């Protein structure tokens, strides 16, 4: 068993869960106190000692089943069949009876809310429909199996013997579908020997979301990570020596070492400060596909930071902080910004130079070394004056300035892109067209090593 457990940890490490020796020792210690025969206890004891975050936990769940219960599953199907044959209604003719009997048994399990039975029956149903012969798309297969079994929500047609059947409500049915889905996923994992792409890290590695709702969750995750990193890192080393105040209590305490004479002054420690963030987002047509992504980034940022002011710009710049603060629904926000933003003037082409001028005159007084400015845009000026010197002034006033460009680095400075002129003044310029890039940006900002491409 020890070897098995070690093997399991090896697999976990392979999927990026940090399992140290101390975790392993804890796991063994914990297992001495729970009954190995109880599956739930065994699993929980392992999980609590090994998987120490929610993400780790998700991976753990997936791998745990795959690692420990691969064989057990086949057995369960076998057993499920025999149990069913013994306890089920009198035998009819082979195949046909099986379907009806199965459907009946599932109804009973659903009505009783018996999770274990539902799981076993879900396995049984899948095997009855032929493992691995489905469409390969889990969602489709779930519905296909459900329909074939004649399971619908609402009032049920009377049973074959004429007795009334209790109605199944939506939630109960969804519960069974969840079991089906899980079992199918497991089946898929086994056949392909890989984890399904439901892991957040893999999920982030996708191209730009085209519909706003599609990847909002992933963006939110990346941004909330960004928030944590910005809140804890990067700021504490700045300006430590300037403007400190004497801590009387601690000075007195220190003076005891010298017999009550305060020889050494003690200062109040600096508290980490909250970042103040200004986000400028290009919403012109040249970045149409990207601006949906950017707006969702903005949307997520607003959920995370209290001191955040956001602006959208095309030819002019307009503050949209209020819109984000009052609306929760992303679709409404997107619509409001396009209708009320008032950022397009005549041509609808981005005018970066003018935007910087406006930004500088309107906002720059609020900028201080504490603030971080993030620009989301492609730096395509449509042949207009880029006013890089104005941009430099903005950069100078702000503590940090980052540029996220929705175009691959290859296209920078090509055509009317004047990225190079701006890049010089930035603390960092990044290509950002997938959520993975966003992650990378977060890492760099936080001072960690950039993630591998």
């Amino acid at each position, binding site marked *: 068993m020890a070897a098995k457990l070690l093997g399991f940890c090896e697999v976990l490490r392979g999927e990026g869960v940090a399992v140290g020796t101390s975790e392993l020792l804890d796991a063994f210690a914990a297992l001495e106190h*729970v009954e190995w025969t109880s599956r*739930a206890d065994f699993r*929980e004891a392992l999980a*609590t000692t090994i998987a*120490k975050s929610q993400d780790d936990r998700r991976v753990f769940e997936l791998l745990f089943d795959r690692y420990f219960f691969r064989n057990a599953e086949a057995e369960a199907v076998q057993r499920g069949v025999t149990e069913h044959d013994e306890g089920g209604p009198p035998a009819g003719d082979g195949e046909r009876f099986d379907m009806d009997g199965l459907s009946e048994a599932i109804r009973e399990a659903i009505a009783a809310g018996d999770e274990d039975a539902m799981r076993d029956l879900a396995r049984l149903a899948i095997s009855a429909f032929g493992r691995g012969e489905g469409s390969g798309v889990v969602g489709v297969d779930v519905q296909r199996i459900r329909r074939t079994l004649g399971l619908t929500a609402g009032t049920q047609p009377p049973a074959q013997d004429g007795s009334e059947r209790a109605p199944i409500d939506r939630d109960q049915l969804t519960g069974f579908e969840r079991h089906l889905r899980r079992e199918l996923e497991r089946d898929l994992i086994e056949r392909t020997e890989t984890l399904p792409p439901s892991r957040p890290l893999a999920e982030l590695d996708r191209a730009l979301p085209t519909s706003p709702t599609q990847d909002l969750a992933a963006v939110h995750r990346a941004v909330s990570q960004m928030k*944590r990193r910005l*809140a804890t890192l990067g700021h504490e080393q700045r300006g430590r020596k300037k403007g400190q105040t004497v801590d009387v209590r601690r000075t007195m305490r220190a003076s005891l070492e010298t017999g*009550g004479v305060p020889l050494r002054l003690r200062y109040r420690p600096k*508290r980490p400060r909250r970042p103040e963030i200004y986000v400028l987002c290009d919403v012109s047509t040249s970045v149409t596909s990207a601006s949906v992504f950017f707006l969702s980034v903005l949307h997520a940022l607003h959920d995370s930071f209290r001191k955040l002011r956001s602006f959208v710009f095309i030819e002019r710049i307009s503050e949209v902080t209020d819109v984000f603060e009052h609306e*929760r629904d992303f679709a409404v926000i997107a619509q409001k910004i396009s209708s009320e933003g008032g950022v397009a003037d005549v041509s609808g082409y981005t005018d970066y130079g003018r935007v910087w001028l406006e930004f500088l005159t309107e906002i720059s007084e609020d900028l201080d070394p504490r603030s971080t400015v993030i620009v989301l845009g492609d730096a395509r000026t449509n042949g207009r004056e880029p006013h890089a010197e104005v941009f430099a002034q903005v950069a100078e006033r702000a503590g940090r300035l980052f540029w996220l460009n929705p175009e691959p680095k290859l296209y920078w400075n090509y055509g009317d892109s004047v990225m190079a002129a701006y890049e010089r003044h930035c603390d960092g310029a990044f290509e950002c067209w997938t959520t993975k890039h966003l992650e990378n940006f977060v890492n760099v900002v936080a001072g960690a090593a950039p993630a591998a491409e």
Partner: protein
Amino acid sequence: MADGSVADVKQALADVGYLADEPAALVSFLAQQLGKPVLVEGPAGVGKTELAKALSRATGRELVRLQCYEGLDEAKAMYEWNYRKQLLRIQAGGEDGWGDVQEDIFSSEFLLERPLMQAIASPEPVVLLIDEIDKTDQEFEAMLLELLSDFQITIPELGRIEATTMPIVVLTSNDSRELTEALKRRCLYLWLDYPDLEREMEIVRLHTPELSETLARKLVEVIRMVRGLDLKKPPSIAESIDWARTLLLMGAEDIDRETFNQSMSIIVKHRTDIDLVAERVGVKLADPLRTEG
């Protein structure tokens, strides 16, 4: 409940009014058996702090609580020298030699015990709750490591102070920042989430036994519906209980649109959230009322 099984722990917790689910009971059990701290994470208001309190009640141990906040330092968390008293001692001790004074003023008499020190030094075993650890900075976490792994505190002037009894340590975090690996490695990890329908109903009924079962079910269903919306602050378990009590006071028979709108502010506490909830949930509630009555 010092020994026994997971089921015993669960029962003991239930006896003091905390309905733990299986993982929570198991982790509490393991924490006592292994003598390891427990790190509890989860959304706000799922009973993380309550778990520690329940453990203290169930084990009959005193609860020592350290509420974390930004800028918390060791003087407030661990110990501090009582410098006023020390000064007095120096001044009062006129003709004593410096050597005597020095030895004297750094004795435990002049030490102010803060929560962590209290928990370690207590002659009786205690439950130590370090609440909202994610609010502190990373330096503070590092400072905790010695305490969490060896249950000891080193004071330069006094030497090492080891725990005489093994405290149960519970750390809670709202997940607002990633905790360091070093801290996590020393802890058992428990993720608490909102309870499922049946369990939340039990919890509500436990705290408001007068509430009828149908109303309790309806209440929990509505709460779950509200949690399903994308709110700034979803209602916590404590708020479900508050709401149940409110409904009792109002003498409500059923949760219809009117009662809901009147008492909604108990569970939803943001202006934008209130609008959203009224729009989405309130409307759903109206229909059954009309068909029924």
